[in-house]
């Protein structure tokens, strides 16, 4: 469809190309964080917050399984 840079997102190679050809190019977001390394920082922050929520809730929902002896099951020798 178009020449692509290495590892470009399909939004660039497909969505934006089609939109630009049709006369409706994408415009800058209302809060434009795509400036320098700011976007990388935002992604890092989003990943950290999302990861924390996933980990915190996961631990609450899926606590580690207790060893058999702690569950009161007696072993027979």
């Amino acid at each position: 469809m178009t020449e692509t840079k290495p590892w470009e997102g399909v939004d660039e190679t497909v969505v934006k190309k089609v939109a630009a050809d049709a006369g409706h190019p994408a415009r800058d977001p209302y809060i434009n964080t795509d400036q320098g390394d700011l976007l990388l920082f935002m992604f890092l922050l989003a990943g950290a917050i999302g990861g924390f929520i996933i980990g915190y809730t996961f631990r609450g929902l899926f606590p580690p399984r207790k060893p058999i002896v702690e569950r009161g099951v007696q072993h027979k020798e």
Partner: protein
Amino acid sequence: MLYAMHISEGILPIDWASLWFLVAAPFVFLGLRAIERRRRENPQAVTLVAMVGAAIFVISCMPIPVPFAGTCSHPCGTGLGALLIGPGPTVVVASIALLFQALFLAHGGLTTLGGNIVSMGVVGVFSAYGLFHVLRRMRVPIFAAALAAGIISDWATYATTSFELSSALHGDGSFWRMFALILVAFIPTQLPLGIAEGLVTALAYRFVLDRRPDLLAVRAVPDIACDGDPHPDLLEASTGSQPITGADV
């Protein structure tokens, strides 16, 4: 720029953007009601909703390189959400994830939020939910059904994005020609990513089924005993559980 399936700010004309908001709105409203109902039934289920919401947020802004395509794209996570917390709540958490991505990550857009909710949050969710049920009714094993649900969720999302773009932008040209062009352009990247998403969906669903089947909104159709595949926890968990009805949506 790191985004992929999300339609960026300004791409959809205002009439089409408004239409997709109108299409998405009832699903979000019903999803909010479904969350409230689940909270009353089982408060811990809301914790799972929060976890799935965070997972969808992270997964759907995570660019994954596809070596033989030479491009990056992202999975959606909504198929997994549909199986774990139900389709209605997944529409809501996907909408919230898309809103935050549009606001702070230059990922998607506020004017195109309705279109992105419909593709990822509605079509992606209900295609997975529907296929999983159909396959389980056909006695397909749980893992295979969840795998197929995850795959179809991803592919249906991108097919819907193609539909939204081509319907709004084909102008005087052929709608179908533009639709096919966009869809084919997505295939090299999304074909393998969809399969990977299906695997993750199946593994995660199996994990929750093993550890906390009581939390699952979408039971694996427990009235059907597949040969060699009545999960031991499933039958136990189904005792006293609600059958899947339209109210779960």
